């Protein structure tokens, strides 16, 4: 196995390592197989077996079974796990390699050279000696489910870019057009943002054709306006901001699903927002104006007199200002001072005496 560096000057920084078969091996009819390896010092070695929860001697059938089971568990549309997207992507990558006996053997060979605890990872220049990877096995992958990003740097350094990585080399191939994939991502905002509207800077990675004819990942920052009145679970569609099309095809769309960060004092149900409001016994008895917080700022709330704990008040259209604005609900909770003085107790005793006929438990079938 001979390997040579075409560009010595940037051999490790940009990391272009070209592997070519010796000229003798290359008959005129054989297409030169070129594999681009992007070497990055800080890359992390990925244990695909561990990701799939299987042993190194797992059969292809076991791999398939493990994949199916974990895919159901971590599929972002199905899973309730917090890191589902990340796990599902990892799983897809692991499966992409292990399901293919060719790639699996190459990966196994690599793993033998890798020492546990090693910080960065760098594939040896001739790690893929004797293997040839075919671009067409990358058609599906798991893209689309986890934003615009593809497989990890680790994967790409070994097997190239998923989706068209090798196609640029096949000069004279039929020209074909394909619409880019739609991309999906979740965006977390605060409830207050839904009242005022906000914007978010998102960094997406998309593949573009580099000046040297190789596809490259280009980060792209997008400032997305999130309109006032948005509700959790709603989706924003950004036309043409998904993956770029192939061969002049249309770009896919980007869908952003909105989620709210959990809030310390408000509960949200659709467009309705609610607040549990602690009040004093005398506020409950006498009523009055008190200041309360709402996601759009402090307001004065008039509490009617003689109102019991647990009673709900509704402020119409003070919920999320959606197309059909929600309401703001206030549940009153009577709270007593932590310590009652002798004087306080005497006053309550007086209340007890003047209200001796009052029994709030008659509905429970309890007499006095």
């Amino acid at each position: 196995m001979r390997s040579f560096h075409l560009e010595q000057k940037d051999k490790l920084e940009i990391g272009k390592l070209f592997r070519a078969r010796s000229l003798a091996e290359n008959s005129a009819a054989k297409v030169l197989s070129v594999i681009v390896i992007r070497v990055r010092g800080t890359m992390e070695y990925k244990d695909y077996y561990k990701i799939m929860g299987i042993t190194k001697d797992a059969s292809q059938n076991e791999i398939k079974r493990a994949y199916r089971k974990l895919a159901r568990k971590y599929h972002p549309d199905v899973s309730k796990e917090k890191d589902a997207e990340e796990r599902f992507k990892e799983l897809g990558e692991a499966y992409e390699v292990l399901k293919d006996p060719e790639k699996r053997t190459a990966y196994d060979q690599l793993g033998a050279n890798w020492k546990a605890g090693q910080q960065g990872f760098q594939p040896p220049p001739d790690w893929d000696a004797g293997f040839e990877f075919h671009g067409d096995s990358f058609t599906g992958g798991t893209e689309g489910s986890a934003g615009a990003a593809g497989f990890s740097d680790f994967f790409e350094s070994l097997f190239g870019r998923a989706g068209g990585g090798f196609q640029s080399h096949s000069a004279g191939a039929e020209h074909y057009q394909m619409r880019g994939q739609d991309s999906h991502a979740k965006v977390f905002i605060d409830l207050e943002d839904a009242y005022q509207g906000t914007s978010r800077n998102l960094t997406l990675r998309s593949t573009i054709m580099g000046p040297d004819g190789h596809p490259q990942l280009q980060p792209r920052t997008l400032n997305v306006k999130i309109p006032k009145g948005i509700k959790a679970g709603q989706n924003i569609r950004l036309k043409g901001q998904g993956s770029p099309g192939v061969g002049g095809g249309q770009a896919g769309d980007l869908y952003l699903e909105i989620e709210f960060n959990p809030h310390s004092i408000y509960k949200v149900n659709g467009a309705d927002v609610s607040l549990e409001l602690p009040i004093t016994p005398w506020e409950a008895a006498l009523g009055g104006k008190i200041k309360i917080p709402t996601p759009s700022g402090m307001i004065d709330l008039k509490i009617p007199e003689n109102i019991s704990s647990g009673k709900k008040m509704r402020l119409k259209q003070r919920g999320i200002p959606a197309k059909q604005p929600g309401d703001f609900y206030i549940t009153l909770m009577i709270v007593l001072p932590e310590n009652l003085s002798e004087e306080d107790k005497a006053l309550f005793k007086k209340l007890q005496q003047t209200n001796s006929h009052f029994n709030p438990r008659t509905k429970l079938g309890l007499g006095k």
Partner: protein
Amino acid sequence: MQNEMIKSEVGIVVEEYDHISLVKLCRYCALPAESIIKMVERGVIDPIDTSLSYTHWQFSSTSLLRIQTALRLQRDLEVNLAGAVLALELLDEIKQLRQEVAYLQR
């Protein structure tokens, strides 16, 4: 990169589209009409007025998202369309229940 002006993008809230015609749905999902009609037949989505002929079909905005989820489930979990529909319906139910639980718990 850093010096470049960041373009501000304004999207459309999918749930606030009024209705989506069959033609638009095809375009948004990058699917031929036959596939959409199949999705209707299998119950992934329902036209708003089922009595109309399919050229006049209108769909609610969430149909778009349902189709995409069905496609992802089919592709990633190797289920057929009927399986995807079943999953979608159960997911809807779970989502609703979770919301209720979250609302009651806090």
